[in-house]
Structure formats: structure tokens, C-alpha cells
């Protein structure tokens, strides 16, 4: 009896020890064998139809704790920049052929689970993204919430620019996109957002456009920086146009993605604290009319004139603000009609309300869309006026 019990105990101990050593033996992956791809760039040469991928991999030994964490000295500047990342390029006929070529020069297995952002070159976007998009979403390692950005030139240029605050450039780039979306300037578009619009047939995908610009740094050297400078509009998998700053904000107003941010009118600046948009379609006699109703609430954060704020003035500011929002919205609607790209998911709104009629409309949506009559109704409310209630200087 005692012998049997001892045998059992030693078996349990043996199994525990074995289980420590053989966990995931076939699929074990060590950090030291992986190359963490932080950013992925996709370019296409329209003439030769050859794809180029740019991998921005993290070099773990060079990643230093950011200064805010304390202790670290931050990134060393001057000695060549980009130390914590490594850039690699490969070219081939299809995206996967290129991905495969990585093994010809990489010493580590590419690992896409931590990819922050995918940058697509302008030429590739205009030529059609389908093969690349399929590669990204079919791959189990790709995540649905990777951010997408379009480069206004080549994707490889953008991934090579050293960004100021972050150790890893792609992380910085992802943060730029997220910040601009938080302040309601440009949309942040994930793979999931993009493909959802893509699969919806009538809705046109959008993505922020990033560009490189140069400025003089603190030591007098020319420094390259990246910034978002527009929103790309797609029809199917091809990029067909670009929204400017004003139109991009207008887009966010219509698709109810205003979080916070500022509305600047000639005499004052207002901080948005909340907004809600409703898209109300109406079908009368075969014609579609769409009303975009925006209800916004803002605080006054700056007033240019040395005047006391009165209820009348608040009322005027509310109206001026509504006019400004309306002009942004009207601009983007005009642009989208001209491009004949339904970037607002008006089709979806019609589908939700008139599901029977939609079946006939869906195949003809390209003909219907530019004829839609859109009216914009903006209601604004000014809430707080800030810490002072008197003008601090009188005229």
C-alpha cells in the first residue's frame, strides 16, 4: 500500500517536471529567435507590378527605457538615429513571395503579432490593394486592430523617418494616428474598419495619409518628420482621391467619430466636449434625401475680443460654430459626391431603414449616390466659458 502511494507521488512529481520542460515543444518560440516587426510597408511599382515590402523590426537590445520611466538616458541622438529599429526591404511579384524572401537575409523569424501599423505606398494604393489586404487578414498572426496608413509617396520613406518621442518609430506613428483621431482631425482606421467597409460593397474605405516633411532641428541640422496630411478615399480596393484637413474633419462629423478637439471660428476657439450625429435617410418617390443631424456641445476656451461675454454673445458664438461645422460637412459631402464614393455609409443607413427597396438600389448605388440630396442640420451648445467671466482688458 505504502509502496503504491510512493509510486503515485513520484509519478506526479515526474509529470510536473516533464511538463515544465516540454511545454509547447513543437511551437515554442523564444524571443531571441524572433524579429518583432513593428511596422510593415507595402509598395508597388506600377510599371513592373513588383511589390516591395519594408519591415521595420525592433532590435530588442537597443530599446532603451523611455525617459519618463526614469533612469534611462533616452535615445542617443547624433550617432546615426534609428538604433532601436532595423529596416529591411524585399521585392517580389506577390506579397507572400516578398515575405518569404525575408528568410534570405534575416537571422530571425519575422513575428507579426506586435505589428503596430501598416503603411501602404501611394502607387500601391492607387493600383489596388486586394492581394496585400488578403495577405494581412488571412494570416492568423495579423490582428484585426492593426492601424492602416497611406503614404503620400513611398511607404519605405515613411518607415525610415526617425520620430521624436518614441523609441520605436512605428509605435510613434501609431500614436500619431491615434492622437489625431482623438482630437477629431483624421480618422484612425484599423484593418477591421477597412475590410468591413470593403466587404460592404457600397461603402468606400478611407485611411489617413501620412507624409514626410523636413524642418530644422535644434542643432541646426535638417530633420525629417512625419505628419498626417489628408485622408485617402478608396473605391473598391483602389485609392481614387484625397480629403484635405477640413474635409477630413467633416468626414468625422458625419460618421459620428468626433471625440474631442477644437472648432476654430474667426473670433473665438471652442473645445468640443461631446457630439452626436444621426444620419436620417428618407425615400420619397424613388428619390433619396438624407438629413445629417449633428448635436454638439462645446466650451469656450479663447475669445479674441476684449468684451464681456453675454448670453447674446454666447448665442452668436453657437451660431458661428454651427456654420463652421456645417461648412466642413458640406465640403466633404461635395467632395465625396464628386468622387462618387460613399464614405459616410449612407448606403448602410438606407439599408437599415428601407431594407426591401435597398435590394434594388444596391447594384445601382453608383448611379444613385451622386444624386442624393443631403441637408445638414447642426445644433450647437456652448456650455462653459472658462475661468474668467470678465474681459481682462477693456477697449
Amino acid at each position, binding site marked *: 500500500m505504502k509502496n503504491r502511494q510512493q509510486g503515485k507521488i513520484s509519478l506526479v512529481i515526474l509529470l510536473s517536471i516533464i511538463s515544465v520542460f516540454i511545454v*509547447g515543444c*513543437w*511551437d515554442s518560440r523564444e524571443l531571441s529567435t524572433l524579429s518583432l516587426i513593428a511596422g510593415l510597408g507595402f509598395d508597388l511599382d506600377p510599371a513592373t507590378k513588383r511589390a516591395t515590402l519594408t519591415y521595420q523590426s525592433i532590435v530588442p537590445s537597443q530599446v532603451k527605457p523611455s525617459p519618463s520611466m526614469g533612469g534611462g538616458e533616452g535615445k542617443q541622438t547624433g550617432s546615426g538615429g534609428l538604433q532601436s529599429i532595423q529596416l529591411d526591404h524585399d521585392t517580389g511579384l506577390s506579397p507572400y513571395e516578398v515575405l518569404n524572401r525575408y528568410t534570405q537575409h534575416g537571422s530571425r523569424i519575422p513575428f507579426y*503579432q506586435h505589428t503596430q501599423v501598416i503603411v501602404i505606398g501611394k502607387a500601391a494604393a492607387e493600383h489596388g490593394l486586394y492581394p496585400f489586404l488578403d495577405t494581412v487578414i488571412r494570416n*492568423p498572426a495579423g*490582428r*484585426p*486592430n492593426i492601424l492602416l496608413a497611406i503614404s503620400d509617396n513611398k511607404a519605405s520613406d515613411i518607415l525610415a523617418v526617425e520620430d521624436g518621442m518614441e523609441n520605436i518609430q512605428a509605435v510613434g506613428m501609431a500614436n500619431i494616428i491615434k492622437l489625431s483621431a482623438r482630437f477629431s482631425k483624421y480618422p484612425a482606421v484599423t484593418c*477591421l474598419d477597412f*475590410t*468591413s467597409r470593403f*466587404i*460592404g460593397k457600397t461603402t468606400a474605405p478611407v485611411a489617413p495619409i501620412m507624409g514626410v516633411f523636413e524642418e530644422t532641428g535644434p542643432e541646426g541640422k535638417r530633420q525629417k518628420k512625419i505628419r498626417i496630411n489628408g485622408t485617402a478615399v478608396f473605391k473598391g480596393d483602389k485609392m481614387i482621391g484625397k480629403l484635405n484637413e477640413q474635409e477630413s474633419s467633416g468626414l468625422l462629423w458625419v460618421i459620428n467619430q468626433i471625440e474631442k478637439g477644437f472648432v476654430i471660428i474667426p473670433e473665438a476657439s471652442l473645445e468640443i466636449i461631446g457630439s452626436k450625429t444621426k444620419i436620417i435617410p428618407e425615400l420619397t418617390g424613388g428619390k433619396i434625401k438624407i438629413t445629417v443631424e449633428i448635436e454638439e456641445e462645446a466650451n469656450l476656451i479663447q475669445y479674441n475680443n476684449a468684451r464681456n461675454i453675454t448670453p447674446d454673445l454666447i448665442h452668436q458664438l453657437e451660431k458661428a460654430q454651427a456654420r463652421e461645422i456645417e461648412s466642413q460637412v458640406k465640403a466633404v459631402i461635395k467632395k465625396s459626391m464628386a468622387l462618387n464614393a460613399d464614405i459616410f455609409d449612407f448606403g*448602410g443607413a438606407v*439599408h*437599415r*431603414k428601407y*431594407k426591401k427597396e435597398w435590394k434594388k438600389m444596391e447594384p445601382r448605388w453608383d448611379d444613385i449616390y451622386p444624386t442624393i440630396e443631403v441637408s445638414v442640420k447642426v445644433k450647437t451648445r456652448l456650455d462653459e466659458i472658462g475661468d474668467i467671466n470678465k474681459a481682462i482688458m477693456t477697449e
Partner: protein
Amino acid sequence: MLEKGRISSFQLSVLLVGFVLGSSIIITPGGDAGHDAWIAIALGLMEGSLIALIFTALVLRFKDKTIIEINDLVFGKVIGKLISVLFLWYFLHLGALVLNDYVHFFRLELYPATPRTVMLLIIMLVCASTVNRGIEALARCSLILVPLTISVIFLVTMFLIPHFNLNNLMPILDLPIGKLLWSAHSVASFPFAESVVFVMILAFLNKSEKGGRAVSKALIIAGLVLIIASIRNSAVLGPMVAAYNYPSYQAVQVIDIRDIFTRLEILVAINFITMGFLKISVLLYGTVLGLAQVLNLQSYRPIILPVGILMVILALTNVANTIELFDFTHKIYPIYAVPFQIIIPLITLIIAKLRQLPKTDGGIP
């Protein structure tokens, strides 16, 4: 009696919830209905509950008898055994299909390099060892695993609420009615009516009069969990929900709470491990016990491993690839399962009623 264990009606309910959640936790049923999947699940739940009524009525009519013994009583020794063998085939095949779901999911998402035989043998060893300990051990396992799984589902659903876009669920009833009904039927056949394997287990209830209520309660709870998961997936993934193989897994990948709670999809995989384990164990138990009864064995324990290996081999050979598995699950299985889930139990029940079995005054104890 081959099985000496007895389980309470509560344990039966929990085990049944786990069984129904089984592989449907990862392959959301009604997927072909797009954003109307939750309606298909609700309708399928109704159909599944009706089917469950048939077999529970049948088994509870004969107290303490499994379907194998009932078949012998109702159809006589020869035909009864034949019908029993049909059931055994269904349990074995269903077990192999669940193993397939298992291995395809894990080899795609988590363990691409691990050989499927090894993966199947490991899970089968765990299931076999549980079955070896009898129905009571299995039921007690479910008492721990099922509440854990359901709370994980609710937790990740909470985390996903910020990503909900309820517009994605509109318009309701977008599908042609025929397609919706087919989808509902396919939901009824997988997973709800698969609970027909409990014809092997209902006999071991300590209070058999509570069996009917226990089964319907369990089906409703599992149905609600699946409806919530389906609404969540549609609201988060939008039209892409129909494109993904494993929508729950993709939806949970979206969770990102201040960069702290991210990459929670492993929770979905863990849910699938535990619920899949319960489902395979129940099916293995049903097959093994049934086979032992058909062959008049003294004990079912010696044949657990052989039958388990048989299930593994069937899983390795019956489908060639994932899309074949999905095709079978969505297009053929809803028809293939009808005889086992509805027709045979219904005929047995009718004949039993006509012959006024079981005879309470006769020699059958």
C-alpha cells in the same frame, strides 16, 4: 448496471450547458445568417428544445435505462441492437467532428507546428482518463469548468462594449425567410439537438422526474450565452463576422483597454479547450458505455482507450481540410443528423407508447 454513479439534476444541467457550448463557443452557430445569426440561434433553440422533449420523454419513460436497453425492449434484441449501433456510430462520428474542430482551430491559431496526431492523442488521453472515473467525475468537472467559461464570456463581452456598433445588427431580419429557417435548423442540429447523446446519461439521474426540466433549463442557458456571443460578434465585427472562420476569436482580439488588457483572445482558446474537453468526454462516455451494453460487457472501462483511439483515427481521416469540415458542418450535417436526433427517438417513443412499454406490472424491474 455498468455505471454505478448517480448525478443530480443540477449537475446534469451544468454538464449539458458545457456540452452545448462545446465547439459552438468558437464556431458560432448560425454564421451563415450574418448579423441575423442571433435570431437563427433563438429559433434553433426552440427547435432544439422540441427535439430534446422527444428524447427526454423517451428516456424518462423508462427509468434507469439507457437508450441501448430501451431499444432492446422496444424493438427486440436484434433490431434493437442494430438501432443501437446506429446511435453509437453517430456518437463516435460526432466525437470525431468535435476533435476535428479542435485540431483545426488550434493548428491554425496557436500550434501550427504540433502534429495533429499528438494534439488529438493528448486531448483524448485527458478525456479517456475522465471517462474512466465515471459519470460522477465528469459531472463534477463541469461544475468547475462551465461557470468559469460563462464568466469569461461575460467578462470579454463587457470589455468589448466600447467597440459595439449596434448599427451593425440592423436591419433585423434582413435575410430571406427560407435562408433564415435553414440557418435556424442548422443551429438546432448543431449544437442544441446534439444533446441527444444524453440519452446515455439521463438514466443516471438520482431523481429522474426532474430530468425534463433540467434539460430544458440547460438548453435555454446555453442558448442565451450563444445569443449574447453572437450579438457581440456582429456588433463588433460588422459585416466581417460572416467572413471570419472563428468570429469570437477575432472579436476578442479587438479588445484594447488602455494598452493593458490586450491580446485576450487566449481566453477564448482556453474556453474552447475546457468546453471541447467536456463535449468530447461526454461523447466518448456515451459511445463506450453504449458499446459495452450492446456487447454485454462486465465493465466499460477496458474499451475506453480503444474506442478513444478509434475516434482519433476517424478524426484524422474523415475530413481533408478545414473548408471540407465547415462545408460538412453547414450543408450536410443538418440533414445527416436528423435521423439520429429526431426520427429514431420519435419512432422509438411512438412504438413504446403503442406497446405500452415499460410494463409496470411485468417482470421488468
